Every structure is written in structure tokens, then in C-alpha cells.
């Protein structure tokens, strides 16, 4: 088991997984979003190859209305 912190909430997964696999599990595939892992941007081109490890801290964001 590994634990990832996603948008401030801990979540458990059975094994390390790629960012794209995580987005599929979270039903976020195809959504226009950006991902940061441990304070660094994960470019969209790296979603398939970037493997997430136990303890990684992710922020997944979208654009919303604001002034």
C-alpha cells in the first residue's frame, strides 16, 4: 500500500501508479487541469511516465471564476 496526499487529503493505493492512472481512478481524465507533485509542476507530457511514490503530495487544480 502507498499513501498519497491529494489536495490535502490522504488516499491509499495498492501500488505506485502513474499520474495518468491516478487521474483515471479519480475520474478526471479529459478534464482541463494542472498537477503539482511535491511543489513541482508535472507537465502534461509527463503524466504517463511520472510514477507516484508513497508520501507524494499532489495538488490538482482547475480554472474557476474569480476576480
Amino acid at each position, binding site marked *: 500500500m502507498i499513501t498519497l496526499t491529494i489536495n*490535502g487529503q490522504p488516499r491509499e493505493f495498492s501500488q505506485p501508479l502513474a499520474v495518468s492512472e491516478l487521474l483515471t481512478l479519480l*475520474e478526471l481524465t479529459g478534464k482541463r*487541469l494542472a*498537477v503539482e507533485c511535491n511543489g513541482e509542476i508535472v507537465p502534461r507530457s509527463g503524466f504517463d511516465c511520472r510514477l507516484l511514490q508513497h508520501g507524494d503530495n499532489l495538488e490538482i487544480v*482547475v*480554472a*474557476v471564476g*474569480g*476576480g
Partner: protein
Amino acid sequence: MEQLCIAGKTYGSRLLVGTGKYKDFDETRAAIDASGAEIVTLAIRRVNIGQDPSQPNLLNAIPPSKFTLLPNTAGCYSADDAVRTLRLARELLDGHKLVKLEVLGDPNTLFPNVIETLKAAETLVKDGFDVMVYTSDDPIIAKQLEEIGCCAIMPLASLIGSGMGILNPWNLRLIIEQSKVPVLVDAGVGTASDAAIAMELGCDGVLMNTAIAHAKNPVLMASAMKKAVEAGRDAFLAGRMPRKLYSADPSSPMSGLIGK
């Protein structure tokens, strides 16, 4: 036509609008269209995990192909959070460089923390961003932000969302007169006359959100703001007559009066 130039790109409209606080995206888009704004702000927030994937997306309502999007750092209280937010925005918007930096210092007044703002501006400019910066109406800080390389200085007219109008026109004039980059009033405009006054002072533009979104009829207010910004700009360019304290000057001829 006389145009606004920000970071090398020209715009016909001097009114910039936000996308917060609207009833829905249809109302957001209708108000933006009525405002004639070309630059439109948006915020970056954590995705709501588990939400209905078919939920409407802001970027469908205001497509980047039609508007210049201006991601902001609203809600950030440190330089670090602001920089991280805008790096995420750049990734989200495919390398888009034009951003609105704001670093707040107090949750009640939403007054900017200028120390953290200066720090964030320095990092972002070095990182290649075009930074339009929200700040207090302090001319010294405004000068420093310009020297760092910000592409537009955006002092508050009054507190964010307060609708209190322009509380210190003197400070705004000092900032306008010293700045070589565009100066836009950001925050505090409540109604159309506030926007006109900002433009008459010589501002290059006005950025607003609540004044339109929280009007009883947002679309009509957006149209009023468009006209106010245009009228204020024209009045500034035309050059107002001098004020004459305690003396009148008749508009009609003094000679040829009957019965003399």
C-alpha cells in the same frame, strides 16, 4: 483607434473584468460580452474530486481562443503560494505568461501584503511571466514593482469587493504620473461614475468584478461600465476645463442684452 498596450499586446478595451460571483456561466459570459472586455480574470482552485465530470467548465464559457485570460492568485497570503499558483496556471493554460499577482495580508480587509508581493513579483519576472500586479496605492511600492519589471501596476481604489469607489485620487495620480507602464485601478469600483473618475484621473484601464456581478442587473451594469470607461478615457484625453473656485463665467454673450 487609441489602444491599451500590455506586455507587447494591444487591446481595444480598457475595461478588464473578473468571472467570480456570477449566478452561472451563462450570466458570466453575457456580462463579459456586454462589457466588451478582452482581458478576463480567473482563479485557480483545487479540483473537486468526485464531482460530476459533466459539470460545466469555465474555460468553455470563456474560451482562451476568444479572450486573453488573466489567471490570478486571489486568496494567496505568501509569495511562495502565489508563485506556485501561477506556475500551475501557466501549465493549465499551455504556457500562458500574462498573470495577475495579488498577495493578501489580511482576511478581513483583503489588503495586499506588499512585502510578499514584491518577493513574488521578483521570482515571477525572473521566471518569464508578464506580471500585472495588484498593490496598495503607495507610490513607492508601485515604483519598486515597476523597477522589478511588472508589466502593469494595479493599485486599489478601495478594498476588494467594497464598492467604495476611489478613496484616494491623489495617490492614484502620483502613481499614474510616475509610471512608465500601464496603471489600472483594480478593486473598489462600485458603479459607473467610479470607473469614469478612474479614467479621468489618467488610468490606462480599470479591472472590476463585484461591481458588475453583484449589480441587480449584471449585464446592464457591464454595458454601463463599458461606456463609463470609454467616456472617462475620452474626457482625460480631451483635457478638462480648469476649476474656478468662487467665480462664475457666463456661457452666453454679455453684450446685446435687451433693455440696456
